[in-house]
């Protein structure tokens, strides 16, 4: 799933390791989410949203929204 995680992390000058520690997941998990190779569960998506103090939809791009924009 497309997302703004890398951008939000870069704005705070955090490494993937830093973000992983804050979310209590591994660096490879952060990498997989950022690159769209893995869609986080709802609880993890909420943890990410709460960490950045943003609504989930401002971090993750809904696949349906994305396809309708493409049309």
């Amino acid at each position, binding site marked *: 799933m497309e997302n703004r995680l890398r951008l939000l992390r870069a704005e705070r000058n955090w490494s993937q390791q830093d973000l992983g520690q804050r979310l*209590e*997941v*591994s*660096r*490879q*998990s952060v*990498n*997989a*989410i950022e*690159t769209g*190779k*893995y869609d*986080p*569960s709802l609880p*993890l998506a909420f943890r990410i949203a709460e960490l950045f103090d943003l609504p989930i939809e401002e971090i993750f791009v809904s696949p349906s929204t994305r396809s309708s924009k493409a049309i």
Partner: protein
Amino acid sequence: MPRSVAWTRYNWRVVGLSLLYATFLISAVYGFKHQLVPNALKYPIAILPALPIIGIFGAMGRYLVEEQDEYVRMLMVRQMLWASGFALSCATIWGFLDNFGLVGHADGYWVVIAWFFGLGIGGLVNKFSLGAAGC
């Protein structure tokens, strides 16, 4: 990456069970070789080395329950699926080759060895299909 507490626990369980396996196997082989095992105990003693291996499967299941990182857990599940597919495929192919008399009969525990080998294949598939996120 620093390994999780669940991974450390899993490793200690596997080390303990492996030592137990070696002890049981050596004892059983020695007992049968020197005809020290009474008839009534032959079946239980023959099964004894299998128990720690079954324990290792249990330890893997426990790891999946205890691992808090959902992505890492998913990687392990993918590895196990590859291992199962590989071991079952090997057993099926060997079974037919055996049926048609083209290969010798293989002991059943080779399926377990193939399964553990399949775990390695699953790890490689994770690494090559997911890149930096897969190792």
